[in-house]
């Protein structure tokens, strides 16, 4: 009985660790930093995207006074940006994280669809 409980407890512990680790994803370090869109967005200026080390991200369109909060993580060399409404944006980094192609459809696509793709370039590495 005691051995059974110990085994059960150990399995439970491992699974709870798994639960904790599942939310962490891969290391964000290599992609953290400040990015700016290469082209203006919707004729309203450039978009600034800041990816912080702590998993928070901000999408700003200064001209419109818009600053949207996201959470972000890295999985399989894709960046996943989550907004509070439950939407997910996928970003594909290239050149070691110097460039980001953000897929604005909110769907998972193997590559960023041209007409809904916003290209960003890193202006500052690292995030606070």
């Amino acid at each position, binding site marked *: 009985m005691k051995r059974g409980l110990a085994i059960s407890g150990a*399995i439970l512990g491992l699974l709870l660790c798994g639960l904790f680790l*599942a939310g962490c994803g891969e290391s964000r370090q290599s992609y953290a930093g400040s990015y700016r869109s290469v082209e203006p967005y919707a004729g309203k200026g450039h978009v600034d995207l800041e990816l912080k080390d702590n998993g928070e991200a901000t*999408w700003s369109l200064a001209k419109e006074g818009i600053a949207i909060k996201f959470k972000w993580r890295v999985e399989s060399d894709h960046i996943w940006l989550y907004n509070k409404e439950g939407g997910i944006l996928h970003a594909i980094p290239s050149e070691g994280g110097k460039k980001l192609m953000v897929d604005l459809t909110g769907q998972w696509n193997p590559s960023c669809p041209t007409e809904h793709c916003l290209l960003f370039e890193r202006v500052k590495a690292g995030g606070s």
Partner: protein
Amino acid sequence: MTESENQVDKLKLEQVGKEVRISAGAQVVKQGELPKHFYVVLSGKLKVYRETLDGIRTDLTVLGPGAYFGEVAIVTGKPRSASVEAVEESTVLAIGKDEFDLVLDQNPKLARQIIYGLSQWLVEGDKRLEQETVHQVKMRRISWFDYVLILGLSLILALVFNLYNDNQIPLIHSEGDLAGVEVIPLKQAVDLYQKKGAVFVDARKANFFEQDHIKGAINLPLVFFDLQYPMFQFMLEQDKVPKDEPLIIYGGSTSRRFDLELARLLKDKDYKVMVLGSDYGAWQQAFPLEGHPKKEVHAMPLGIGGYIEWLPVSIFLLILIPPVRRSPYLSAFCRLLLGVIFVQFALSKIMRPAVFAMNVVDYGMMPAWAVNLWALALPWGELLAGLFLILGIRTRAAATIIGGMNIIFIIGLVKVILQGLPITCGCVGEAGEPVTWWKVLKNTGMLVMALQVFFYDKLFVLDRGGFIWREKKI
């Protein structure tokens, strides 16, 4: 087989039989074979056990010096009722049947002791049988408490976790204040469309919009409102749409989450906003449409998780073999596999309930008020039921709940396929996997596994009476 101290001396058996040395692990008698000898343990330690045809072993007792065994079969002439093997190097006195009968004829005291031993064995056997019957009844019993325990605990954990989760969502979603949003009947909306007197705005996700939408409509998905509103404004500016021209929002499903909330958000931006009325779902029949109905839905490869999900399909083949179908070892395997799959399902959803809530809305089966509650509670139900299966706690109730979930999933998947909805499964992983008949088959496999566990599970179970590890002595 009863241990009786100093029996060897009293019975004066030294004139008969022959000493046999048995090395550790060697079998002295085998269950089912015809008896030839009666044995008295002279030194060492021997284990008596029974084994069923499907390999379930029950340890009965351990015998030391002075004990004897093999009398039941030698007296009845029936095959051995149990096996005996040496735990350590031992010596036994092996007495043939003729010699045994001779000793009994000449030694009434020994005969009485053998009869006493057999009677004791029968009484103990009855007690063991009763204990086992009670245990089996308890184990098969299923009570409402088991379901209340799993479902109640899931709900409590979901609510508590949501309180402290960074990605918290409201328990019941509200569209906010809809005062000032005009409801327009479908016919009137069609009239406005024909007169080009309104801009039609599709509130659904891009994949739904791409599949089909009212010709000329603009897509502003609710989930990306903040992000895409500047582009929406830009498009209205490009089309020179006057600010007072009405915007007619459509895209309501069972939950009506998208169209009503988008209407409120645009109203807050000072647009003249209307939503389709009671026949909001009939726009596909009333308006000219455009889009790509056969557009493929991309899904991210799931890796190992995707392969594990194929195992339930192979269980089908095993289920076809009757002895295997009833095997408690298959139940233990099914429990472990189902448990791992459902824990994996749960872990992919628990941290970000808003994402899962959007998946729930996509299926169009849940009213708006229930979406968030379902999105919060279901992953915890999957996690607890999965853990209960792995750990062997209330396994029949856990299997019923997992079976029930699978039925709901199968209904949802079939609905998506039949209606051609452009969505991914959302079952595991946030990018999901394509909804196909293969996915339905995988879920059916899991349903069959849950049924197998419900009917035949009895190994490694932490039950009301304690942990039952069938390899151990009962």
